[in-house]
C-alpha cells in the first residue's frame, strides 16, 4: 500500500506537517464536448469496483436519479431552450475537489477527510464515523452515506491511479476528450483556450467554472453558457460552509472559552468563598 503526503486533514489538532509543494492536479470538463455517453460513469464503477445498483428508466437518458455511495459519477441530462435553440445539457455530477473543501472543514473525525498535496480530497473510510456533517458541509451536495457500512463515499479522483502516475479512470476513458487532466496551471491555460474557442464559435458568455468562494476546484468546467449556470446545476457562488455554519470555527473557540470559564469560575468560587457546610452553621441563625 502506498501513501501520499497530506496538505489538510479533517479535525486536525495541529497543522499537517506537509511542507513539500508537489504539483497540483486538476480535471477539466469541457461541457461543450461532452456527449453524455456515460463512459466516465462506467469506467469509474469498473475501476473502483463499485456495485451495480438496480435502476429503472424514469423518463430520461439519465441512469440513476441521484449519486449514491455506489455511484460517484452521474451524468445529468436536461433539455433547455437557450436563445431559441434547444440545448441538451449534459453535466457530469461528481466531486469537484475544492481547494477549500467544505466537507473536510465540517468533518469532526480526525483524518477521515484529507486533502493530499496534489489537491485531491479523499474520504478515508477507516476513520469516517458516519456523522454526515460533510454531506451538509459540501456546497455541491456530493458525498453520500451508505446505510450498510455507515460511512460516506464520493469520488476520490482515482487517487490510487494518480499515485501510480496514471490519470483518473474517467479521464482516461472519455471518448471525446471532454475531460482533460494535468497540472492545475495547465488546465487553467487549457480552459482559457477552450473559452476562446467557444467565443470564436459564437458563444457569448463562455466561462471557466473554478469558483473563488471555495478557493477554486480541482475539477473545473468550461461552461458554454456561463450566464446560465443554474441550468447546468452549478451554484453561482458556492462557499466552504453553508450560511448558518459560517464562522462555526470561531464560535467553537468562543464556546471552548465559555465552557472553560464555567469550570474556572467554579474553581475560583471554591477557592475564594468556599463550600458552605450545613453542620457548621448554628441552628439558631435561622
Amino acid at each position, binding site marked *: 500500500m502506498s501513501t501520499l503526503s497530506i496538505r489538510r486533514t479533517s479535525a486536525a489538532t*495541529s497543522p499537517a506537517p506537509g511542507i513539500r509543494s508537489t504539483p497540483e492536479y486538476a480535471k477539466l470538463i469541457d461541457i461543450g464536448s461532452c456527449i453524455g455517453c456515460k*463512459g466516465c460513469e462506467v*469506467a469509474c464503477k469498473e475501476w473502483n469496483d463499485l456495485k451495480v445498483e438496480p435502476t429503472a428508466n424514469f423518463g430520461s437518458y439519465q441512469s440513476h436519479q441521484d449519486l449514491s455511495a455506489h455511484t460517484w459519477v452521474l451524468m445529468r441530462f436536461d433539455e433547455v431552450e437557450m436563445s431559441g435553440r434547444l440545448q441538451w445539457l449534459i453535466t457530469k455530477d461528481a466531486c469537484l475537489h475544492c481547494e*477549500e473543501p467544505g466537507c473536510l472543514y465540517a468533518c469532526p473525525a480526525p483524518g477521515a477527510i484529507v486533502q493530499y498535496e496534489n489537491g485531491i480530497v479523499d474520504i478515508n473510510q477507516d476513520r469516517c464515523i458516519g456523522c454526515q456533517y460533510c454531506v451538509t458541509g459540501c456546497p455541491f451536495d456530493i458525498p453520500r452515506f451508505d446505510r450498510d457500512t455507515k460511512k460516506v463515499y464520493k469520488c476520490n479522483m482515482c487517487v*490510487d491511479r494518480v499515485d501510480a502516475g496514471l490519470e483518473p479512470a474517467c479521464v482516461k476513458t472519455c471518448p471525446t476528450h471532454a475531460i482533460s487532466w494535468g497540472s492545475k496551471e495547465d488546465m487553467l491555460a487549457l480552459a482559457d483556450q477552450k473559452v476562446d474557442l467557444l467565443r470564436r464559435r459564437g458563444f457569448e458568455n463562455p466561462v471557466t467554472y473554478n469558483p473563488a468562494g471555495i478557493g477554486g476546484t480541482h475539477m473545473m468546467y468550461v461552461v458554454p453558457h456561463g450566464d446560465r449556470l443554474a441550468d447546468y446545476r452549478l451554484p453561482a457562488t458556492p462557499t466552504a*460552509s453553508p450560511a448558518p455554519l459560517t464562522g462555526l470555527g470561531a464560535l467553537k473557540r468562543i464556546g*471552548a*472559552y465559555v465552557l472553560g470559564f464555567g469550570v474556572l469560575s467554579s474553581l475560583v468560587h471554591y477557592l475564594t468563598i468556599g463550600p458552605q457546610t450545613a453542620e457548621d452553621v448554628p441552628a439558631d441563625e435561622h
Partner: protein
Amino acid sequence: MDVSRRGFLKASTAGGLALSALGFDLTPAYAAVRQLKIRNAREYRTLCPYCAVGCGTIAYVHGSGGLNTTPTVIHVEGDPDNPINGGTLCPKGASQMQLAISPRLRTSPMIRDPRASTWREISWDDAMDRFARRFKEARDASFVEHDEAGRTVNRCEGIAWVGSATVANEDAYLITKTMRAMGLVYIDHQARI
C-alpha cells in the same frame, strides 16, 4: 475564507486546551491510498469487441499462466498507443471486463428436442455428431446439381448460415471457405442489418 487552516486549527487547539490537557495529536502527515489493483497484472493488447471503431484495449490478467493456474481478467482499459482511440473507451468498452468473464457465459452444449419445453445438456461429441448428421441430411435432401435448364449449379438450398460480424477475419474466412465448399448459397451476416 474565514475557516482558513490556521484559524481552524487555532480554534480547535484552543478549545481543546481550555477543556483538557489530555488528547492525542491525530494529525497525520501521510494517508494510505488503495493499492493499484493492476499492479502485478500481466498486460495483453487486444481490441474492443463492440463497434467498428477498432479501439485498442489492454486486458489486465492475474495469474502467472503456469500449469496450475487459471488466469483471469481483472480489468480492461484503453490502449493509449492505439492511434484511433488513444486509450479512450465508451461505456461499452469500459465495462468489457464484465463481458470477458461474465458468469453468464455458457460452458456446455445444449439441445432442445422437438416439442420440448426445456434444454438438456449434451456432450460435445454427441452435439457435433448430431450437427454433422443433420447437416448432411439436409444437404443431401436439398442439393441441386443441375437447375431446370440443365445447367450445373451444385448448390445446397436447404441450409442457411448467418454470422458473424463479431468473429475475427480468419474465422470469417474459414466460415466462407467451408460453407461455400459445402455448396451453401444462403449466407449472410450483420452487415445486412
